Every structure is written in C-alpha cells, then in structure tokens.
C-alpha cells in the first residue's frame, strides 16, 4: 500500500504568502485571546485548594454550594468533573484561613450534607509561593528549550534554519495556549509538559524537512531555492503524514481512554500535532526561503585549481 505516489514536486511555496498571512492572523488571534481572557490556571499555579469527591448518586450541586457558603467558604467554586457523580471544589488561597486544614473542613462540610456520603478522590493544596515558583520554572523551561534548540540547529544547519524553526515553534506553542485561553480550559502542569513536548515534537518535524532541504541543495544542481524546498517537502510528505498520523492515533487513544486526568494533556498534544505539521511545512519553510537560504551555504564553492603556467 502506498498513499503518496507523487511524481512531480508540489509547488507549496507558490502559496507561501497566503499561508503565512493565515498564520499571522491565527497567531494574532491567539495572542489577543491570551491577553484578553487570560489562562484558566490550575491550582498548581495559582495556589489554593482543590477537592475532588465522588458520590454513589448524583448530588445536588446547589446544596453543596450552599453548605460550603454557610461554612464560610463563599468563594468556593463547585462544578461537575467528568460525570454527574464527581464533584470538584476549588478554593483560592486566603490569608484568614489556616491553609493546611481547609481540605479537612471542606470534607467535613460535604459529609454533613444530607444524602449520599461522598468519597474522597483527590485533594490538592498548593501554597501561593509554590504556585509562583512553578510558573517561573515553566517560563524558564520554555526559554531553555528555545535557546537550546536554536543553538543546536544553528550549529548543525545554519542560523536561518534555527531562526525559522524557532518562530514556527513559538507559533505552535502560542496557538495551543490560545486555544486554552479561548475555551478557558484548565491549564495545569501536565498541560505545560504537553506544550513543551510539542515544542520538541514540532521541531522534530521541521528538522526532517530541513534535513532534506540541505541534502537536496548538496545533491541536485540547477534548482532554484523555491524548487529545492518544494522538492524536500514533497519527498517527506508521505513520512510526515504517516508519522503524525501514528502519533495522533496514540494521542487520540489517550484522549479517549485516558480519562479526565489526561484529558487536557492529550488535547494540548492533539492541537500541537495538527499545528505542528502545518507550521513546519507552511510556516518555517517559507521563512527560511525569505531569510535567503541558498545553495552556497551548504556546498563549499570549488576553488579552481591554479595550474602552474609553464
């Protein structure tokens, strides 16, 4: 079986400008959403208390809210989590409460409500300091990845490739975060891990194409830069689709079977993979082209032998 029997190179670069305008728009939209709506950060980042309980029968969320409010937790967020029987209670950090006793008080309050007895599934309490540190560490990791990959690409390839790959990757990352901002999905530590994994994954894709570009420059003479890039993308097309298809299969399996805990993690990866293909083919490649990549950068011009004149 073979999906791609492409004889002639597909002229991807002819449409480069159009795609890049689309990219620019989505990129701008992502930035706007992040700026306007902000991220729905999980307790891990903001600090606070999160209690997940499970009931044998669906409880009345309104009762729980009322009971918590009566117990002095008027700022508690109560919502269903996964199913109607699972309830998530979230409380921001407050100075006037003894933080490490909040979860017990919440559990005691929930047990005191008439009706089915809740079973404790999970408690998370994070002090405000820890939250800030985690956010800072996340930022550092992002920076480190960007710098590390640029340095490696600049060393193995050329600065143009490094720059183009970085822009394309940043584009992917921002779009994922944009999605999380737009839908107000919870941005947790595993999601951050997914975002950083996408960064590695997406650059992987870019590298495969760049590798081909470099090889084509070295092997084939007489092609224009645009033709070389078109050729490289077309040749790797099959691999791109299959690899991403495979990864997507696994990630979708995680999305389906992984349950609530892995849900957003898998979702971030899904978005990342889809945009990863797009960005490496249609964002980073045109960028390298515009940065002025050419054959001379890879093939040392042969020096004419100076023959001694007799």
């Amino acid at each position, binding site marked *: 079986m*073979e999906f791609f029997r492409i004889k002639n190179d597909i002229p991807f670069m002819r449409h480069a400008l159009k795609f890049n305008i689309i990219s620019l728009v989505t990129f701008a939209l992502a930035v706007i959403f992040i700026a306007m709506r902000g991220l729905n950060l999980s307790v891990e980042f903001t600090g606070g208390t999160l209690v997940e309980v499970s009931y044998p029968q669906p409880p009345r969320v309104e009762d729980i809210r009322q009971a918590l409010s009566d117990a002095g937790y008027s700022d508690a967020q109560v919502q269903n989590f996964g199913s109607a029987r699972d309830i998530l209670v979230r409380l921001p950090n407050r100075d006037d409460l003894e933080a490490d006793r909040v979860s017990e008080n919440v559990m005691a309050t929930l047990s005191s409500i008439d009706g089915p007895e809740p079973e404790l599934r999970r408690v998370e309490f994070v*002090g405000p300091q820890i939250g800030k540190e985690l956010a800072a560490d996340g930022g550092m990791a992002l920076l480190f990845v960007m710098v590390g990959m640029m340095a490696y690409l600049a060393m193995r390839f050329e600065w143009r490739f490094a720059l183009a790959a970085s822009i394309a990757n940043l584009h992917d990352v921002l779009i994922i975060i944009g999605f999380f901002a737009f839908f107000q999905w919870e941005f947790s530590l*595993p999601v951050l891990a997914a975002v950083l994994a996408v960064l590695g994954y997406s650059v992987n894709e870019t590298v495969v194409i760049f590798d081909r570009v470099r090889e084509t420059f070295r092997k084939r003479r007489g092609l224009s830069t645009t033709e070389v890039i078109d050729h490289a993308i077309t040749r790797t097309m099959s*691999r791109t689709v299959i690899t991403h298809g495979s990864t997507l299969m696994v990630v979708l399996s*995680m999305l389906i079977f*992984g349950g609530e805990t892995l849900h957003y993690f898998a979702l971030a990866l899904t978005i990342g993979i889809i945009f990863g293909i797009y960005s490496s083919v249609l964002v980073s490649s045109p960028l390298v082209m515009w940065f002025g990549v050419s054959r001379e950068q890879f093939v040392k011009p042969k020096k004419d032998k100076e023959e001694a004149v007799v």
Partner: protein
Amino acid sequence: MNRYPLWKNILICLVLVFGLIYTIPNFYGEVPAVQVSSAKSTVQLDQSLIGRLESELTATDLQHTGVFADENSIRFRFADTEEQLRARDTIDAALNPDPQDPSYIVALNLLPATPNWLTSINALPMYLGLDLRGGVHFLLEVDMAGAITNRLDSTTGDLRTLLRDRRIRHAGVTREGNTIELRFRDTEQREAARRAISSGNSDLELAARDDGENDYKLIASLLPQAAQTIREFAITQNITTLRNRINELGVAEPIIQQQGADRIVVQLPGVQDVAKAKDILGRTATLEVRLVDDSPGAIEDALNGQVPFGTELYTERGGGPLLVKNDVILTGDRLTDAQPGFDSQTNDPAVHLTLDSPGSRIFRDVTRDNVGKRMAILLFEKGRGEVVTAPVIRTEIGGGRVQISGSMSVEEANRIALLLRSGSLAAPMEIIEERTVGPSLGAENISKGFNSVLWGFVAIAVFMTVYYTLFGLVSVIALTANLGLLIALLSLLQATLTLPGIAAMALTIGMAIDANVLINERIREEINNGVTPQAAITAGYERAFGTILDANITTLIAGIALLVFGSGPVRGFAVVHCLGILTSMFSAILVSRMIVNLIYGRRRKIDRLAIG
C-alpha cells in the same frame, strides 16, 4: 552488504535479553506481607531480630517466602492472606508482650511478588507514584528565619551570662533583627567584652559602633558559615524528627526527603487519613527534664504499689525503676541542640546539650539548688514516658550548655543525642503543598493509562503491518523492544512512574515510530529510483540515520529542559520522555536493522522487498 558481524548481533541480543529480565518483575503483581517497624526511637531493628522472628515463625509452622530488611523496617512475604494474618498475630505476640505499650509496629502490607533470583540481581518492579497507588504527599517548608532567630535569642542569653561571669558592666544586651546589640558606657568595658566573646565564641562577627557620648555598642552578627550550619542542622534535624513521627503511622515505604534548601517532601503511600497524618507530623516536643526522688525507702514503697505523692514511677532505659518528681523543669522546646562528644576533662563520651536563654536560666537555678542529686531526662512517645538517662548533677550549670556524661559508650552517646533531638523540631515547619489521591482513583489511573498505551500501540501496529507489510512487522517488533527496554530502564533506575509518565510512554510510542517510518520511506524511495533491493536497504538505513539523530536530539533538548526545570508531574513526564527517546533510537536503528539483516542479508539475489 546487509550483514552485521556476529559480535554486533550478540551485543544487541544481550541488550534485549537484559531488557526482558528487568521488565519481568513488573508482571508478577504483589503478595501479602507483614512489616515490622520500630514504634519507639529507643528500639532499634537489627539482624538478630530477623533471626528471632524467623524462629518464632518456624515454631508456629509458618513459612515465609522471603525476608527483606532495610534501615526502617523488616518485611516478610507470605504465600496467602491467611498465612499473613496468622504471621502478623504470631509476630505481634512475640514482639509486644504488653499490647498497651508496643515497642514495635506490626502491620499488614503488600510486597512485589518478584522471585528471589530476580530480586537478587536487583530486578525490581517500577516504583509507582502516589497518583497511581493512592496516598498522601506533603511538601513542608522549614522556617529558616525562625531557626536563626531562635539561635540568636539563645546566644543573646549566653552573652549576657558570659558578661556577668566575667564581671563586665554593660547597659543591655538585646537582639535587634538578625544582630545582637551590646551596649556599654565606656570603651574599656567594650574592649574587655570583645576579648571575652571572641575567645569563647567563634560563630560571631563583632563590629564596634559609637552612637555618641556614653553610648558604645558592639554589634554581633552570625558569620555566614555559622548561619549556614544552623540552616543545615535545622533541616536534617526536622527530617529526623519527621522520620521518627511517621514511623508511628506504620507506613510501608514512606519517602522523607530534602528538596531544595529549606523544603522537605513527605510521601505516605496508602495513607488516606490526612487529618491523622497531619496531626502526627505536627506533634510537638515530647522531651522533659525532671528531678529524681532519691529519698531512702521511697522507691521500695513505690514498687510495692504506694507511689509517694508528687512523684511517678518510670523505668530507666537499660536500667531499673526510677521515681521521678511530677514537676517539669524543662521541656524539649527549650532544647536547641544535642550533639555527641567527649568530656573535656575525663575524655569520656558525653552528650552536649544547648538550651535557649530562658531554658538556661531555669537550668542554672535548678542545678545550683540540687547539686549531688539526680536529674532525669524523659522522652514521651504516644503519651508514654521513658527515662533516657538520669545523670548526677555535679556542679551548677550556667550558660545554657549542658553536658551529660557518665558510664556511656560513644555509640550510646550518639544514640542519646539523637533521641534528645528526635522529640523536637529545630525550626517550625509549614505545609505548603498537599496532595491526596484516593486508592480507587489510583487504580483507575493505572488502568486508564495502561489502556491508552495498549490501544495506541495496537492501532500503530495494525497500521504499520498493513502499510509496510514485512518491514512494518519489523518496525512493530522494534517498537515492542523499545517499550520493553524503556520499562526495563525505568525499573532498573527505580524511577517513580506517575500518570504523566504513562502518558509520556504513550507519546514515546507515537514518536518512536517516526524513525521507522523515515527508514521505510527511504527504502521505498530508493527502490522507486531503481536501486537494487540490497542497496536500497543499506541506503535507507544510512540516509535516515542523520535525520533520526537530528530530530531526536532536538526532542531530547526539550526533554532535558523539562527534567531540569520541571517538578512533580512535569518531571515524571520528562524522565520517561528522555529515556524513551534514547531507547527508541536504539531499537529503531539497531534492532530493526538486525532483523532486516537476518531476513534479507543472507540472500544473494532478491527480486523485491516486502515493503508494501
């Protein structure tokens, strides 16, 4: 051209066998076990106890299937739960003759069922994180500023006593923030004080300051090294105390670790009762100093059941009964440090105690009034007291530095110092992070994670075999090898597997296939270009190699960043991710090539490759 030398084949096979062996322990599951740990910090676990318990078990016709001992516990494995329960009763009866005052905690437990020959080569199952097992996780922060202030407060008292002893007139010694200010009326007294202090105390840095006529000051501050020592002491001391307290919970494999400069991680797998765990972690000082009632005849009366009024009967550790007065002179929170050492005159082993300033004042007064009498140091655990030591007071002891000496060995001195420290925290602590995962959620997380990996793998395997036929099958074998090696590595390193770790495993499968796809696509391409099958295989693997390397190294950079900067779930993800990249490179390049070589390499002439 497509043949590996024999040594290379053997080497790859060896790695695969090695991977298989270290993967196996994960499939054995768990068996019932009985865990014995010490209930008192005075009770030590040692080799002789194992022998004793083994003979007890044989005496009651019980056969254990393995014994494991570490620093904190001894564990016996049993064939079934019935034997486990009987063994628990036998051991409990043998070790704790008085159920009201148990010296050992005997708890039911689960242990990996790994056969002994595997355990002996260190092939153990992966260590499951709390999110997969259920349990409690605490992150505690030690109040270092509090530790320093405590020390400065006690030093302030020391200095005051020192100046008085040397008859140096001063106009006040006070702690101001992180410094101690000593005020003097004239410079001569100040100079005398400076000499006195610097000869006796090497932790302080002294600076003179003149604040006008008749107001001469000496500003004492802690030297950076001294402050550093205090901080390090505070954290190790708190960890020791926590360990002693957590022992009471009888948790199977508690983790108590320092994290960063001033944080302690406590993980209690299997514990669900957060409130109890917190109470035990937060328990306060349990050390008391009281006077011994040595009046003639009193002890005999007490042993006959007539305890004199105002006293209590206790047992001295390793000694006889002792009558102790009810009045508490000092409690453990007055103690700032206890270190083993030697008596400066007799060179006998001794324990040096440091008290804070109110403590040292009380202590001086009491010792002055009771020279020649005995003083008991009691340790209270779970509401029950035991006399650790009861030395005779020889002279008045001032300055907050107390020495306990007498007939003790160096080892004993070490142990008493540890005991005295074990009751109290060196600095207050605060819980800054807490996670509880219920056991049902843990089991659910495992099955969900496992299913994601399984179905992801199946989907890829089916697709690869259909799309690339024989070469696809080879890729699937390589992928299986990859998964096996990854699990083997994780087991060998005893890295903790968490839910994000399982997610990383799934992702690794998805990404690992990339290398195989790159190779297979290259081979197809070469064939389409009209190259012979044998040459196509060689070219395919060789051409793809550079790309695979570049692609994986960039991914590895991201993985390492996660490892360095991540914490908690991110780190759990990163460990598996990084290892997965390494194993997938090995299996995609070497394992798959070996198989392809074995299939095609021997044949001289091949018409076509089965690559779909």
